[in-house]
């Protein structure tokens, strides 16, 4: 009896060990794929940013990147931060409007706002080149309204124009995510606030937004990273003018100089910009929980 019992428990132990290993085994293919497809190219690009042309380890690439492009790093950050903030305010306002109103106009708006999401950056760039040009649609319109003189049109192939274009492209995408979050909130939370005296603005700021911190941060981070990493739009609107974005600089370094070292160093800098956002997100949204103050 006793022997049989210990046998059984031995087998149980074996079973436990297997049970522990089994999920890991299942994870292996996915993990391997991640390593090969994501980690390896990333590590290799970081590594190559420390290589001189001859192959020896050096910080020269970073030194050069800073000397030549520090202004552009700042410019990229400014553009990304500014357009993300403007797009966030716009998309929160639009989401709140769609969430809190009803009627035919809202239905139309909630269909139309999605359109820019499906337009590629190249096409947006093309559109904005004609829309924002010195004698483009925007300036002609503003002149007709009497805001500006067409002999001295707004120059928009610069930061303002770039921010405007990014907002045009990113705000709908952010709205899609944020509105999704707003729609999940039961009417009762909104009505409870109104019954104790909150007006619409207070409902948005004190109930809808704080209850949706998760979806809003996701929207902000996705929009920010995509803005930082976009090449086409700044290339088409600003090109090689100074200042321009880091993405344009990277392309420039590779195309005209075959200089992968500096290009990789700039890439790492871009990665760091995004990393700051990622850390912020992890610190404030995930760790502390969505609902805590």
């Amino acid at each position, binding site marked *: 009896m006793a022997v049989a019992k210990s046998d059984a428990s031995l087998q149980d132990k074996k079973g436990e060990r297997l049970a522990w290993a089994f999920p890991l085994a299942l994870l292996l293919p996915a993990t391997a794929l991640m390593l090969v497809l994501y980690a390896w190219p990333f590590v290799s690009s970081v590594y190559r940013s420390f290589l001189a042309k001859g192959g020896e380890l050096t910080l020269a690439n970073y030194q050069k990147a800073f000397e030549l492009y520090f202004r552009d790093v700042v410019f990229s950050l400014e553009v990304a931060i500014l357009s993300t903030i403007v797009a966030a305010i716009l998309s929160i306002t639009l989401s709140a409007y769609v969430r809190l109103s009803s009627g035919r106009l809202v239905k139309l708006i909630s269909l139309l706002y999605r359109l820019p999401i499906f337009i590629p950056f190249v096409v947006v760039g093309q559109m904005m080149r004609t829309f924002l040009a010195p004698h483009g649609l925007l300036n002609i319109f503003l002149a007709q309204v009497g805001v500006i003189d067409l002999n001295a049109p707004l120059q928009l192939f610069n930061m303002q124009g770039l921010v405007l274009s990014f907002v045009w492209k990113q705000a709908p995408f952010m709205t899609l995510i944020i509105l999704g979050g707003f729609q999940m909130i039961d009417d*009762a939370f909104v*009505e409870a606030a*109104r*019954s*104790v*005296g909150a007006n619409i603005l207070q409902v948005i700021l004190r109930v809808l937004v704080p*209850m949706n*911190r998760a979806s809003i941060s996701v929207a902000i981070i996705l929009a920010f990273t995509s803005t930082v990493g976009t090449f086409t739009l700044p290339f088409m609107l600003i090109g090689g003018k100074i200042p321009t974005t880091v993405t344009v600089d990277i392309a420039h370094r590779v195309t005209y100089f075959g200089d992968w070292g500096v290009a990789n160093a700039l890439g790492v800098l871009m990665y760091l910009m995004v990393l700051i956002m990622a850390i912020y997100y992890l610190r404030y949204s995930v760790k502390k929980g969505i609902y805590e103050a």
Partner: protein
Amino acid sequence: MPGLHLVGLLKRFGKTTAVNKVNLEIEDGEIMTLLGPSGCGKTTTLRCIAGFLIPDEGEIYLGDQSMTDLPPEKRGIGFVFQNYALWPHMTVFDNLSFGLRLRRVPRSKIKSRVDETLALVRLSGFAERYPRQLSGGQQQRIALARALVIQPRVLLLDEPLSNLDAQLREEMRFEIRELQKNLGITAVYVTHDQAEALVLSDRIAVMNNGIITQIGTPEQIYNQPNNRFVAGFIGLSSFVDGIVTGLDTARAYATVTTSDEVAIRVPAGSMALNQEVTLAIRPEHITLISDTSAEVPPDANLLEGEVIRIAYLGDVIDYRIQVGGWTLRVHTDTDTHLRPKDKVQLMIPAERINLISPDL
């Protein structure tokens, strides 16, 4: 505190008329219950009062003031939601103080008002908790406290107890009524639970299909239902159709004869000869007589019947008894032991029979 007055309130959703020309006068300090089956328009009525919905027709008055065009935040109404709707990102203190801060109540006063209100719902010391750290019953009390802390002119409650277990629900009925009476606040309470309505209301408005079919005190609603819906929805009733064949004005009784020629004596009320009527009889108002020598009051009806179905309900036995071409339900003590096909005599006091117009 002013009374609440609904005049011809009508609300449609597409083709359905959720609330159909409702008139209701709720007195100062009264707790009125809207009672009715699911989908009858109770919540819609309440949300119109709160201003969450704009009625298609009709007016809402609080005292002399028309509230019909006021936005919800200007109405001074406390609302308790079925799912409580406590803001999950705020502590209990913040949930309660939110409305006070919006009203620019001074900081020191906010603290004392919140403390007082928490004491009122017996949850002092819970101020720093988040809603998810509270039990369902505690969340319910906080929801009540949040509605009360702003000192509303009217308190509206939409099935506030339906998410609680049976025991707590029963306790809270008394607690809500006591609180409402102590504060002297005008209140409208929505429920589909008749026991809840009977316990905590001053008056009950029974709703069906967007219409109020009867308004009265719990006793009136239970003992004198004036239509078939109320008689069937609140408590149990058996219905018998017949025609008035005799009027005994002196003693205020009438004789109603059914299609199978059974004569039943009922209170005359305002009936006319040859009028078609429906009788509603409560199961607990019928006595089964197996001993023929038992004393029968002179005004009681004695009917012959046969047991067709028996259900043991724990506290009572529910018999279905065939009398002529119709059946009556009878509730008796659990010490009666009849079997199907047994012949029985039924005694029904005339004044216990309710008359209902058949068209309602």
